[in-house]
């Protein structure tokens, strides 16, 4: 039977364990459980949203980087010819680019030490729209605030969308997802624990208070043979408290709005150690087809994000991110929260888009002989 259920052991245990500033939530009469089936940055790219133009593809940008290093036009032209011709010199461009950082004139890994590379001054986004939330509380008075294309809220803080909005690999929409996030999701979904979302309330068919619980599963996302996420699969909740977060929210007209201090989800250390945000906001839309569509916004440590890109090195740069030190400088420029002692902001406002499908969620110690719900 479909998974809309009476109070489950899990939902009650979660509620019992919550420490909330406002006090404990009453036991819920209904809960719905989901597993994340897609995750990536929420982008709203459109024509003419890059005043300086969309940044060139990596194949061209790297030649500009060579020029920034001091190579002449003729030298660069020769290197390109050598690359096309094959032979012993075909890898020269990649050799230089992959060590283009300079410290005292000596080559340095530009991905681990991006500040040793001359800022390529990549273009940033300047459109009117970006998904997200009014994180700084200033609303329409926010300098450079966006308008959310869905809710039409003004003063949306989403500097990550601005920073990456003119990078080809990060342009896209909710229905035509950006290359980088498509690639990342494809890598991560089968190799990292699934994310579980439980929404509990007295009656999820009516407006009212709800609790949103986000957990990590012991299982990876279960897939059908075509690679799509499998609906109605069962997941066990990882008991590690570091990935257990509970939020209070308000359900109105089928949409749950949540505001919380933060979110922190352990991921896959080979790609991205953890996903964390402060001052988190969520907008979860309960759809008629039993799925969930969610926007998650907040301030994300940009170093987390940068080093998740940089971990892939030259391969990532050429295949999926574009100029990585350039991105570093964009992050540094547009970061808008958590200033350090030098005044450099350590976090950047960001919004992510998450889709989720129905799933069963069980505590780890669930009995073997399960009963239908």
């Amino acid at each position, binding site marked *: *039977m*479909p*998974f809309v259920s009476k109070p489950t052991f899990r939902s009650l245990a979660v509620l019992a364990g919550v420490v909330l500033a406002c006090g404990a939530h009453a036991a819920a009469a209904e809960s719905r459980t989901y597993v994340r089936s897609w995750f990536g940055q929420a982008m709203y790219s459109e024509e003419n949203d890059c005043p300086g133009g969309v940044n060139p593809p990596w194949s061209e940008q790297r030649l500009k980087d060579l020029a920034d290093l001091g190579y002449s036009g003729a030298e660069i032209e020769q290197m390109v010819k050598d690359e096309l011709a094959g032979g012993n010199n075909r890898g020269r461009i990649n050799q230089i680019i992959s060590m283009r950082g300079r410290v005292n004139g000596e080559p340095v890994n530009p991905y681990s030490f991006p500040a040793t590379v001359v800022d390529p001054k990549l273009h940033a986004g300047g459109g009117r729209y970006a998904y997200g939330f009014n994180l700084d509380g200033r609303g329409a008075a926010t300098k450079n605030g966006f308008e959310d294309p869905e809710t039409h809220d003004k003063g949306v803080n989403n500097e990550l969308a601005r920073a990456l909005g003119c990078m080809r690999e990060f342009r896209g929409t909710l229905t035509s997802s950006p290359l980088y996030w498509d690639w990342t999701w494809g890598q991560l979904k089968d190799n990292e624990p699934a994310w579980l979302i439980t929404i509990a309330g007295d009656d999820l068919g009516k407006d009212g208070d709800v609790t949103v619980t986000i957990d990590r599963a012991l*299982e*990876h996302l*279960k897939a*059908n*043979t*075509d690679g*799509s996420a*499998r*609906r*109605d*699969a*069962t*997941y*066990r909740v990882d008991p590690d408290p570091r990935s257990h977060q509970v939020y209070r929210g308000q359900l109105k007209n089928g949409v749950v709005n949540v505001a919380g201090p933060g979110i922190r989800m352990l991921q896959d250390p080979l790609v991205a150690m953890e996903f964390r945000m402060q001052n988190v906001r969520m907008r979860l839309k309960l759809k008629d087809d039993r799925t969930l569509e969610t926007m998650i916004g907040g301030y994300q440590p940009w170093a987390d994000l940068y080093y998740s890109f940089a971990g892939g090195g030259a391969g990532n740069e050429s295949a999926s991110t574009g100029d990585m030190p350039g991105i570093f400088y964009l992050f540094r420029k547009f970061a808008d929260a958590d200033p350090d002692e030098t005044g450099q902001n350590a976090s950047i406002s960001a919004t992510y888009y998450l889709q989720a499908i129905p799933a*069963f969620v*069980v505590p780890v110690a*669930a009995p*073997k*002989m*399960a*009963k*239908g*719900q």
Partner: protein
Amino acid sequence: MKIAGLAALLAIGGVAQVDAAEGEAAVRRIGADQYRNIIHDVFGASIELGGYFSPELRINGLGAVGAAKITVAASDMEQYDAMARIIAGQVTDEKHRGQMIPCRPAAPNAPDDACASRFLAKVGRLLYRRPLTALELGAHVAAAHAAAATMGDFYQGVSLSLAALLSSPQFLFREAIAEPDPAGGARLNAYSKASQLSFFLWNAGPDLPLLDAAARGELATAKGLVRQVERMMASPRLEAGMRAFFTDNFGFEGGAVTKDTVLFPKFSASVAASAEEQTLKTIVDLLLTQKGDYRDIFTTKKTYLTQELAAIYQVPLAGEAPNGAPDTWQPFEFEANDPRAGILTQVAFTAFHSPAGRGSPTLRGKALREIILCQTVPAPPGDVKFNLINDTSNPLYKTARKRLTAHRSNPVCGGCHKIVDPIGLALEDFDGGGEYRTRENGEAIDTSGELDGVAFSDAAGLAKAVHDNPAAPACAVNRLASYALGRAPSASDKPWVTMLETGFAASGYRFIDLMRTIALSDALYRVTPPKAASAAGG
């Protein structure tokens, strides 16, 4: 039964042929599972078969009956020959020969007739399911000798003869050798009787105790037969026999069913294979482990599921295996108010009896009539138009019920549809992939129907109607008897079949009791004498 050159091959052993006319014992080709079971019984589970088996021929809904009519094509013989060589090569290789061959040759690079004879006699008895005749053994030992001498290797010589045993009709076919019955007429001789019994109860050749009992003449006595039957019924191997019957009866093909992956993304080859296993586990648990009532297979809430199947059934089932490891089987019981009950609501029925892109009340109703109730449903006329039925997005006929009602307006179609659709429509809450639903194209699904005058409102009601329908247990008797005999029961078998039905009811429809009764029946071993004695060498 026709095999090129069979008569010549049989001449070596002097085996009399029995014509496979209706009502008479038939010589049946062993099936793929039977072949595997015999090889593993004789040589161990580590021996790999290689090769593949051609599809069965199903007659009267059973491959066990078709086995008596099936021919062996040249391509089949190629595969049997290839498998025989692969198996023989492994048995005689350095890794296995120490365990498999009960003696060592005087010299490994030369023939040793005594050792070859000892080995070939031992395995030959198990493979032929009777002792080799002196002529047969002599021929195979001579062949081993010649091969060993030519190749300078005793084991290669023995391997060649073993491969010949494995390619021979005496191995590939179940002999049905008749002898006069002191009570009149003819009966299977002791070894053929042992085979008949063993393939029925265990889906494998006779083991050593059964062959020894045959050799001692014990199977000809009631007491001796009872002793062997009880031994075999008490063995864990009875499960294989029960599984083999239901696999054949339900037409399971090892997960060969395919579905449109866009419409039914959860369905896959592994789901198909697991669905068969789910139904078999459900049946074995109820009928063998619990020694339960056969009719309860249509109403039981208890089954077994994997995590993959649980997603189709939309129930929670957590596994404990590491990520990437195969799913594990777990017992599961549906809630009392769950719409699923019995094997008719399982994926192996609802999805298997549907086309790739939709459900089908007609096919499901037909399957129930033919497989469960042993009733014949005529084939559709050659010129029937399926456009309307296949038009699952028709805005006027949003549900299958409405599309079929429109289709049945043609009186040519109505006659057959009225006997199958009212059954199948009760299962319309299960889509073509076996997943539960209450609406089709946004419209509520009406699952009311009737079976032989018994009305019901949903699948649970259908399950109860089948449970209570006397044709269901009668069909089980008929099918199991056909399976055991390798042919449909003839007119002369009617008193026996009636006795079986009566006994089945009296036992509370305990399926294992029915198996026991058949195993102990003279009818299983009685044969019609051949019209004229067949000379050896035919």
